[in-house]
């Protein structure tokens, strides 16, 4: 469970690289991401979906760090397998074995996997602060855009608090494995309440620091790394959209053509 949280968190940790996707403006990437998501949702044909995956892998090989992506995605696979089993059982009921359902469930998980893959690709190649700036430039007030970055920034801190509280309560004899459902819920409070309280106390300090660093002082905020849309970004958008348009067209043909 903790490894899942840490692998999700890892996705947001940006490390500088030279590949293509790391150099594209986040706003363009956001547009591109929305386009890919739309394509995944619209396309229902299995072969075309595999084509989309090929497209994503090719994009990763050219423009990003494939070992990094694979590491993030690997930890999700266990969770995905769990989802697959649940979806299969729910849809196959009352039958135990249904090949049709097995296949459909697989397709559903496959599409979900591609969704996760796209998001991983986006976030590992985009510094969170740049995303905040992109949202700000798109019209969202900075302090709202910054909230997301700040929350991600504190994930490991809160996780550490949780572990500390867990240890402290276990050292007082707390045994989560024992007791009935209600008992366990009450025991969970012994874990949640201290974590919440420590987080609330933290808010005061963070507010003090934000104020001390003149947060919100000026209407037009500047940035150390200013986002600018370059020729490269435009070219990227054009060339990366062509395969997607092709796939959408093929799907459209399949839907409307009578073969």
């Amino acid at each position: 469970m903790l490894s899942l949280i840490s692998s999700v968190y890892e996705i947001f940790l940006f490390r500088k690289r030279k590949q293509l996707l790391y150099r594209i403006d986040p706003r363009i990437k956001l547009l591109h991401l929305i386009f890919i998501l739309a394509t995944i949702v619209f396309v229902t044909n299995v072969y075309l979906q595999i084509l989309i995956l090929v497209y994503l892998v090719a994009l990763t090989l050219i423009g990003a760090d494939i070992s990094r992506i694979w590491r993030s995605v690997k930890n999700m696979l266990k969770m995905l397998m769990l989802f697959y089993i649940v979806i299969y059982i729910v849809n196959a009921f009352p039958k135990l074995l249904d090949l049709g359902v097995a296949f459909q469930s697989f397709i559903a998980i496959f599409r979900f996997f591609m969704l996760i893959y796209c998001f991983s690709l986006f976030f590992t190649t985009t510094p969170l602060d740049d995303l905040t700036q992109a949202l700000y430039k798109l019209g969202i007030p900075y302090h709202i855009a910054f909230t997301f970055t700040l929350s991600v920034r504190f994930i490991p801190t809160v996780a550490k608090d949780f572990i500390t509280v867990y240890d402290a309560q276990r050292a007082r004899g707390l045994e989560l494995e024992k007791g009935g459902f209600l008992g366990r819920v009450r025991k969970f409070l012994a874990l949640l309440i201290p974590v919440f309280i420590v987080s609330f106390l933290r808010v005061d300090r963070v507010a003090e620091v934000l104020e001390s660093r003149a947060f919100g002082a000026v209407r037009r905020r500047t940035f150390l790394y200013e986002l600018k849309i370059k020729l490269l970004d435009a070219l990227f958008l054009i060339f990366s959209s062509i395969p997607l348009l092709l796939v959408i067209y093929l799907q459209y043909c399949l839907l409307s053509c009578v073969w």
Partner: protein
Amino acid sequence: MVKAIEVENLWYIYPNGVVALKNINLEIKVGEKVAIIGPNGAGKSTLIKHFNGLLKPFKGTVKVFGTDTRKATVATLARRVGVIFQNPYHQFFSESVWDEVAFALKNFGFSEEAIRYRVTKVLRLFDLYDYADRSPFTLSSGEMRRLAIATVLAYDPDVIVFDEPTVGQDRFQKEKIREYIKLLSLQDKTIILVTHDIDFVAEGFDKIVVMNKGEILAIGKPKDILYDEELLTKANLIMPQIPRLVKEAEAYNILKHKPLTEDDLARKILEILRCSM
């Protein structure tokens, strides 16, 4: 005579691959007062988490009163080894001070009567009885610390471990902690204190364990350890004030007595001055 804590060839590696403890060998006898010192990241906290089973050895064994920690649950070990953590906010969650103290007792299966008796006793001992119905979050920071210690003493463990008790504390608070250690020691409790506060461990301990980078560099008597400049430098620590000034003054006739407190040193100085008159 069974030892309170026996650590043999202990290695611990975190899931992310970091080697936190390397070949730790340590023996703590019943009733001893031990200080484990070292810089941040030395592995001190990792080590004490093995004493109540929060962490299980990667390699090697840890025995608490003869019981192998691998074969016992945290709850059974925690019953005998109480750990007082650094930040009271990491454990308080009850509606009242009374409930907070009773929490551990309930977990350890004490009877209603025993709980009532013990909670009353320990609250009175720590001057918190008048706050019994109040929320623990309405207490001052000093009172919260007292409460944190009270919650552990209520179930009367044989070994009491203090994890960095002096961080952020002023002199009065540190002296209070010293008093509690003395009090517990009178009751034959085994005391283990983890800290990087080199001046705090100058008095009140039978032996000092020096750690750095996951290893034990030395175990010895305070006088020997705290005057060993080379050892302390290797451990990324500095000498306490009194040994440091005695060494720097090159006062060799005082050096052989190795005074650790200003009282000891003052007495030696006056002795020497009187002798030479």
